[in-house]
């Protein structure tokens, strides 16, 4: 049972990572990060069945942080969109030397 859950978790994480690396739309990349976070949540839940309740406790932490991050991140994306009228990250490379 644990193995299946972990495989699913790893698959979801890999999908999230791949999506983050290859997509250029900021909102899609953002959703990929959510996917990665939830993949981790899944393994937490799976482990908590064998190792104790702390795993589920961490899931709540992650969800709280993800919610906060979603609020801030979306706000940033919206303000970027208002400025550049696009959310394609290839256009945003000002932050360098």
């Amino acid at each position, binding site marked *: 049972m644990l193995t299946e859950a972990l495989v699913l978790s790893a698959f979801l994480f890999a999908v999230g*990572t791949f999506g*983050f*690396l290859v997509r*250029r739309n900021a909102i899609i*990349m953002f959703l990929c990060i959510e996917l990665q976070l939830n993949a981790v949540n899944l393994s937490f839940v799976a482990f908590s069945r064998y190792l104790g309740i702390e795993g589920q406790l961490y899931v709540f932490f992650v969800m709280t942080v993800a919610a906060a991050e979603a609020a801030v991140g979306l706000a940033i994306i919206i303000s970027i969109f208002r400025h550049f009228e696009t959310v394609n*990250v*290839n256009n*945003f*490379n*000002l*932050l*360098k*030397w």
Partner: protein
Amino acid sequence: MTLPLVYSALQEGHEILAAHEVAGEAFEPFLPGLVILLPLLGFILNGALALAASRRSADALRGGAELDFFEGGKRPWTHSLPTWIGPGVIGLAFLIVLVNFTRMLGADLHEPVIRHYWTWMSTGAFQVDAALQLDQLSMVMMLVVTGVSFIIHVFSVGYMGEDQGYPRYFSYLNLFVFFMLTLVMGASFLLMFVGWEGVGFCSYILIGYWFTDKAKADSGKKAFIVNRIGDLGFLVAMLLLFAGFGAFAGFGTLNFVGVFAAAPDALVYGGGVVTAITLLLLLGATGKSAQIPLYVWLPDAMAGPTPVSALIHAATMVTAGVYMVARTSVLFALAPVGGLTVALIGATTALFAATIGLAQNDIKKVLAYSTISQLGFMFIGVGVGAYAAGIFHLMTHAVFKGLLFLGAGAVIHSMHHALHHTHNDADPQDMRNMGGLRKFLPITWITMWLATLAIAGIWPFAGFFSKDEIIWMAGARAGGVSGGWYTLIWIMALAAAMITAVYMTRLMIMTFHGKNRTGQEEARHLHESPWVMTVPLMVLAFFSIFGGWINVPHAISDSFLGGFGLLPMTEWLHEWLHPIAGVATEIQAANAGAFVDRAPFGGGELLWAVLSTGAALIVVLVSARVVGGFKILPAGESPEPVGFKKVLFMKYYVDEFYDRIIVQPLIRASRFSWKVIDAGIVDGVANGLGNLARALGWFGSLFQTGSVNTYALFLAIGVLVILGVVAF
């Protein structure tokens, strides 16, 4: 009129002395710390005034005009207060010293009294206290330093009165006295060294007092740098004393009391370590006291104001080396080679500098070489182990050479005014431009003649007793170990004494006698100095006459030269300094033989005293006749000296020689290390490393694209790599 007065005063001193031998009270110092602090206070107050004055003149400069502090004949407060503060603090210090001196006279003092104030530094076994040492030797030095300083401070009021930097001058002079007192009162080698460096620094700023003149500023630098060589010797000697070398484990302390108590047991007589220590100390002394090979800075030091030359470069600072040898007499007694070297250097310097003095035309240069020569005599004294004689000459020389310099100052002051009024740009210090000044400066003329007779060693002036004592003591060792050397020193000293009489007479004749060579218009502006300058001359003249009577040897005191016992204080200084020099004298007597009461070629002390004063008198009279017969032309019309006279005039080309073998190679080496080693190698490595770092940075910056995807990719790769490392 004054003679009976002096006599009774001296008689009284003698009675006090006689009383103290039976009395035997403990010596209780009176405010010794204040003696040092008063000059420091003067420095701070005068320094504050100098800063206030400089702020005013800077404001004026910003407004586009140079400020004349004496405009309209009025002195601003910054320039009138130093008149009272400068000499005042020194006078007070002198009074305190006098109180201490009378107390010490009445006390029975065998061990030095140490006044401990606080621990200066303490690291492991090394501890130095801020402590003052009061004993017979430091007392004599305190008397000389504060007394002569006070007189010269008073003289300065007149001499420097119209100088724009008046408060600055007095602050420097006060600071000098502070350091000089630290030097003579400090209770350890390190405190002495503090004073030693301090007076060197003050000498530097006072030589370069008129620093806008580059030649004068350079003279200050020369004095400072030449002294560094000697100071290195002092420093290494201190390290050897503290930490030891080879079989000698070191004293573990730098306190005079500790070192000198342990020295006779800890050091082997004539051993390598103690010889090295004394020779290194001697190197320090040759720097400070202007002896061969480090004397070259003193003639150049005459660039400073003349009272500075009198105080620092004649009476006090330059005698620090003599004081140091007398202070460390135990070490020098343990190292016969060290002592002999001191005496030999002294004799060579005395003769060498005296001959240069014969051909100089600058009045201060003659006196400078005379000072070097007289310091040589003091070195002979302390070198042969006659410490009291060396210190005795130090005292009398401080008085009569101080007087000669102040007299020269008065002459230069007057000459300067006369030449200034007539817009003549001739050199006011060149004796060829003077002549016949006795009509215009009668007090200066008489007092300087008294000092000349004193320095020439003519009975009964001060210099006769002190110089004769030194020459006699040098001869008195001719019968002992390495007697040949001492015979040589004795002959050289006698010759130098005769030459002294020649060049001093020449100076007096050229300056004060013969026809006036200033020019008629100039001569009308020549005038005697104000009383604030002539009174110091008279005070010093008084001591130039009678100062020698404090230490008349028995052989002379009981003869007709001493009025058959009429001179009151027979060998007073000798007995006074016995607690200091006694140990050294015993060590020397036990190992190298005592002083013999006989000159190298026979004859007793009295005979040689009569011979030397007679010879000196004849030399003075003859050279007065000879120089009086010369046709002297003003500096502008004089021909160049030729032959040996030119060699003397050019000071044996020693400066040129030093320039060729030391200064120029040093400059070349410095240029090499600047251009090749520093600019080439060191800077090359530093710049190379900088360029390397910049190139690496540039390469690294290629990875910073500003694009989120690149960063995410590297992040992912990094995570994979770390996971790979952890997993396998």
